[in-house]
């Protein structure tokens, strides 16, 4: 963050070489009280990557336990806690924080603003989210559940009633789960409101809505969707807490409550939540694929329309998680149709990315590698999603390992791959240094191979009848070999993530200097220094097209001549 130009020549720099303790404290204080969107973005990212490692360790423990039939690596109690915490952590503490971290850091820069619309609300939202995560993990020592001292939640991340009732989940583990989700929910709502306000009212001169970068568009759509979906989740947690402490009977089936109502509340949140996580990943891909194809995004208006379309349709598909709970045949039919309809705007997106590659000059740099893997994996995830939307087949596949494979294809194959792509792409902007390309390629190829060994194989154990959430399985079911293969793939992914973590640290100190615009890109964030100054833009920028830096670099052939 050094000022390159001191205004007075010949001043003597008297800054001591080593930071004293007091300065360290001041530095820390600066991070705690910051309202700068870039610093908050970094905090979100660091927080998310930390929990990515934590939840990754939980996943590896789960995979060691399942590598052999009747293994005793984890007790049943611990296994149930680990898969619950793995899911909850990955969705709320990794996915949501990293997505909003990208949003926080990039949205103001991309729309040419100096900060978010409500900087202090922004800080408040982050610290709420952080508190929610601590609350969740505090349950390991403070849960006082059935099993002694600490007990993390062990009811699954979907936490179906009535297993969460006090009769079946005594102790406080479930309360920690519900409370942390309420707290994080409010943090998420704050950020969503902030992003909507920023995109609607803070754009620089010339940036009409249809000139916003696609990433910003997708963050806008996601934020709108968040407002709609977090609300039922929060309501359901409050109802659950009322059931547990005030004698309510919302989900208490012994007293006439309904277990199915919980499912509806949970999935009207839960399904759009998938889109809340995956659409920023679409946004990242829509920034990276054009730059490394050296072409403008194909069909920008269609991409925007498809995103808005997906958001609307995604609000009407939740009960495809409930084909086995005994809805009527007409009810099932409705959700088959709505679910299949999602495939249409999603297909449009895939075709548009493909057309962006078509006729380009594709550079296989690390961010692009992750995005290309995303393309093929997201295609597969969409197709297995179509399989699952076929209700009768869903009666077989639901809650089997096929479903686990499908949603990890979405959550890892699409979202995590694009998160990695985004980190490789924007790390130079954030730190001023490039991530190491060789380590990056090792990371990519190991993660890619590990991912496919693990999750491709999982589809097949699902076909062979293996249900999810089981801490062990019988040796005579024919699942043992495949499970061993799956676990091996998990280890490879673990190694890849360690390489990535090392790359983040190593390149921070030793990486190549990045300069303002290392990728020869076109959006506004690349017009400012790396890392950007606190105020982002010294003078308010003005844009005339979707790719302001293209216009600067190619004055003879600017975009604004062609954009519809």
């Amino acid at each position, binding site marked *: 963050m050094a000022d390159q130009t001191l205004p007075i020549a010949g001043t003597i720099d008297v800054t001591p070489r080593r930071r004293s303790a007091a300065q360290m404290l001041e530095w820390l204080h600066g991070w705690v009280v910051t309202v700068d969107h870039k610093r908050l973005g970094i905090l979100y990212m660091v927080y998310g990557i930390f929990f990515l490692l934590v939840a990754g360790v939980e996943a590896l423990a789960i995979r060691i336990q399942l590598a052999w039939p009747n293994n005793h690596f984890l007790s*049943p109690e611990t296994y*149930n806690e680990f898969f619950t915490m793995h899911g909850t952590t990955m969705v709320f503490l990794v996915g949501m924080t990293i997505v909003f971290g990208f949003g926080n850091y990039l949205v103001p820069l991309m729309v040419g603003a100096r900060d978010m619309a409500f900087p202090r609300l922004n800080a408040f939202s982050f610290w709420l989210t952080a508190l929610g995560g601590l609350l969740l993990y505090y349950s390991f020592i403070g849960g006082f559940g059935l099993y002694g001292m600490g007990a993390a939640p062990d009811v*699954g991340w979907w936490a*179906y009633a009535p*297993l969460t009732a006090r009769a*079946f989940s005594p102790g406080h583990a479930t309360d920690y789960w519900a409370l942390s989700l309420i707290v994080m929910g409010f943090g998420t709502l704050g950020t969503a409101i902030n992003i909507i306000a920023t995109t609607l009212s803070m754009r620089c001169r010339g940036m009409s809505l249809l000139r916003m970068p696609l990433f910003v568009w997708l963050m806008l759509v996601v934020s709108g969707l968040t407002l709609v979906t977090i609300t039922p989740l929060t309501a359901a947690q409050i109802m659950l807490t009322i059931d547990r402490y005030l004698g309510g009977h919302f989900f208490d*089936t012994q007293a006439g409550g309904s*277990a199915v109502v919980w499912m509806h509340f949970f999935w009207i949140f839960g399904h759009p939540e998938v889109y809340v996580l995956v659409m920023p990943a679409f946004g990242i891909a829509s920034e990276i694929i054009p730059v490394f194809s*050296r*072409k403008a995004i194909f*069909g920008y*208006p269609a991409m925007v329309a498809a995103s808005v379309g997906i958001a609307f349709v995604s609000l009407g598909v939740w009960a495809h998680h409930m084909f*086995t*709970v*005994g809805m009527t*045949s007409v009810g*099932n*039919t409705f959700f*088959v149709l709505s679910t*299949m309809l999602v495939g*249409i705007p999603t*297909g*449009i997106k*895939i075709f548009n990315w*493909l057309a962006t*590659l078509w*006729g380009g*000059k*594709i550079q*296989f740099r690390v961010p692009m590698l992750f995005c*290309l893997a995303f393309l093929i994996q997201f*295609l597969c995830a969409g197709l297995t999603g179509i*399989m699952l*939307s*076929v*209700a*009768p*087949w*869903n009666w*077989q596949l*639901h809650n*089997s390992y096929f479903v686990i494979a499908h949603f990890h294809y979405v959550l890892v194959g699409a979202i995590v791959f694009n998160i990695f792509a985004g980190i490789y792409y924007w790390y130079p902007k954030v730190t001023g240094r490039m991530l190491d390309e060789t380590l990056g390629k090792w990371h990519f190829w190991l993660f890619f191979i590990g991912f496919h060994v693990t999750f491709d194989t999982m589809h097949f154990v699902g*076909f*062979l*009848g293996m*249900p*999810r*959430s*089981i*801490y062990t399985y*019988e040796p005579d*079911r*024919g*699942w*043992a*070999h*495949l499970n061993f293969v799956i676990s091996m793939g998990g280890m490879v992914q673990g190694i890849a993530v360690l390489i990535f973590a090392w790359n983040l640290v190593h390149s921070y100190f030793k990486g190549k200097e990045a300069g303002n615009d290392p990728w020869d890109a076109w959006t506004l964030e690349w017009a400012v220094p790396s890392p950007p100054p606190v105020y982002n833009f010294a003078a308010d920028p003005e844009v005339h097209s979707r790719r302001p830096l293209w216009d600067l670099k190619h004055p003879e*052939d600017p*975009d604004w001549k062609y954009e*519809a």
Partner: protein
Amino acid sequence: MRFLIRERAVGVIRQRAAGVLCLLAACSMRAAWAEGPLGSPSIFAPSSTPARTILDLSWFVIAITGGIFVTVGGLLAWALIRYRARKDDELSEPPQIYGSTQVEMAWTVIPILIVVVLFLTTTRIIFAIQDAPEPPAALDVTVVGHQFWWEFRYPKLGIVTANELHVPVSTAQDPRPTFLRLMSADVDHSFWVPELAGKTDLIPNHPNEMWIDPHRTGLFLGQCAQFCGLEHAKMLLRVYVDTPEQFDAWVEQQKQAGVQDPAVAAGRHVFETEACTNCHTIAGTAARGTFGPDLTHLASRATIAAGAAMNTPQNLRAWIQDPNTFKPGALMPAMQLSDEQVDELVAYLDTLH
């Protein structure tokens, strides 16, 4: 109840999907061969109309999605090879293309048509399976899910048993489907025997129904498919499909009260005077508990602890001493009996055919 759709287009689709089939078959057969005699409860080995109808529909869906995958994946691979940046012309930018209404219309309309086809096919099968009427010859069974075992009640026959469901085989000449009414005593469970039908959840306060009509005799394995708590993994399920004669004989036997063999009266005394009767029933004795499985014909079952262990005297003994041996977290407490009492008790339970 036969579904026309199956007889029609499926033959062609099967051939087209033959590659995938081979892969899957190799996969499941290899695994089954390597692991033991029972093999996997694979959804690709249906033995009942719902499972078979679902499989035929799946082949249709696999063919369509497989076609999409090959097409789009092929285009992607081609684009990556054809349009990769080459060393010699790094400096110039390629022509900028912003979109094309015609092309975009085309790839919007084609997916819509595919969705229409898939949706109509799916709808037909949903109604065919879910709304199939119950024929008069059908057998009724009420399934009650418990943490972590299955209770089977045959209301018309007056039989109550646990964990091992017996049903008659259903052939074209003599169709005898079984209709299951699914309920739960505590939390959500799910009844899943992949070779017989898709799964349906057992939800308290929300009775569900499903049906099976197994076409061949034998043992079919399944297990609870909805996380139901600590021992969800060991809530296993066995369905025995009997010939009509075997089934009738089984029904006759199950209708009897518990065997009263004077040689094991000491064991019966232990059962009736210790806490066993709080949870278990043995017809013809004072034991009337309903929290745990009915033990009237325990010795006629192949397994104990919802399939977690084979029903041998040694296992039974270990189970009574401490259920955590097989199933840590099972709701049955360790009974704290003396060795002598356990010996007597196991000898008694072993006579309950």
